[in-house]
């Protein structure tokens, strides 16, 4: 999956507003906090790509 720079920037900006106490369990690995999610997205890891997909799916739902 190729990631557009705009999509990545958008998701990174959205992740900045994530509360500090919140952690995510995703893909068999748990305990991603805000900073680690930002790193995954910045590095376009498999987890990072899933996070971007999740954000974009949600945002697109408002277009309908």
């Amino acid at each position: 999956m190729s990631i557009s720079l705009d999509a990545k920037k958008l998701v990174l900006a959205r992740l900045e507003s994530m509360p500090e106490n919140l952690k995510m369990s995703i893909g068999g690995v748990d305990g991603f906090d805000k900073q680690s999610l930002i790193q995954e997205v910045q590095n376009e890891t498999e987890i990072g790509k899933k996070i971007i997909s999740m954000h974009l799916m949600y945002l697109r739902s408002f277009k309908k």
Partner: protein
Amino acid sequence: MDYLSSKKILITRPNHEITTHYLCEWSQEIVDLALTKNFDVHDLKGTKANDAISYLEKQKYDFVILNGHGNIEGTEIYGHDNEKLIDSKEGYKSLRNTLVYALSCCASKSLGKKCCDNGTRAFIGYQDVFIFYYDKNMASRPLKDEYAKRILKPANQVSIGIMKGNNVSEAVEKSKDLFKQELLKLQSSESLIGSENVAMALMWNMAMLAVSGDEKAQI
């Protein structure tokens, strides 16, 4: 009570780190419901989860609930300490003639169809990763975690629906309805800080929930 007609349920509840701890705790309501319905429940908690195959090979179950991690390829489901439980090479054969719900990442990407091609009545699972959020301050009390609750309760609805006599299609629809209800609540309320994150996960999980096999199957 007629033991001969009692439904037989097997549930795996590995519990070796945060994710499986949450799934284990939140699955208790499923075990409790099964017991109130006088089902014959084999609750494989902690390390016992790794004995699932030997249970499945010795007796026929009406409903099998698999909690635990799954690989990204969707070909394996794991138990306690991520010991491989079910795979698409051999282990899937143990799920013949039963109805399965896998709360594991990607199980419906590949394993679900493989099982049903081999005689599993129906396989309900997720086509991609299953996501939930939790409050790091509540990790020792998962049942009090409002973030996790919003996601794990709708996910549990599949099992609850099946045990209440819904067919697969009905149980999945009710689960999706609950996902949608939670989504609407989160989108219309500011009461939960970070609610949009939970809403995204709800939408994602709802989209990934899928069925292989007979949608009319019921226990």
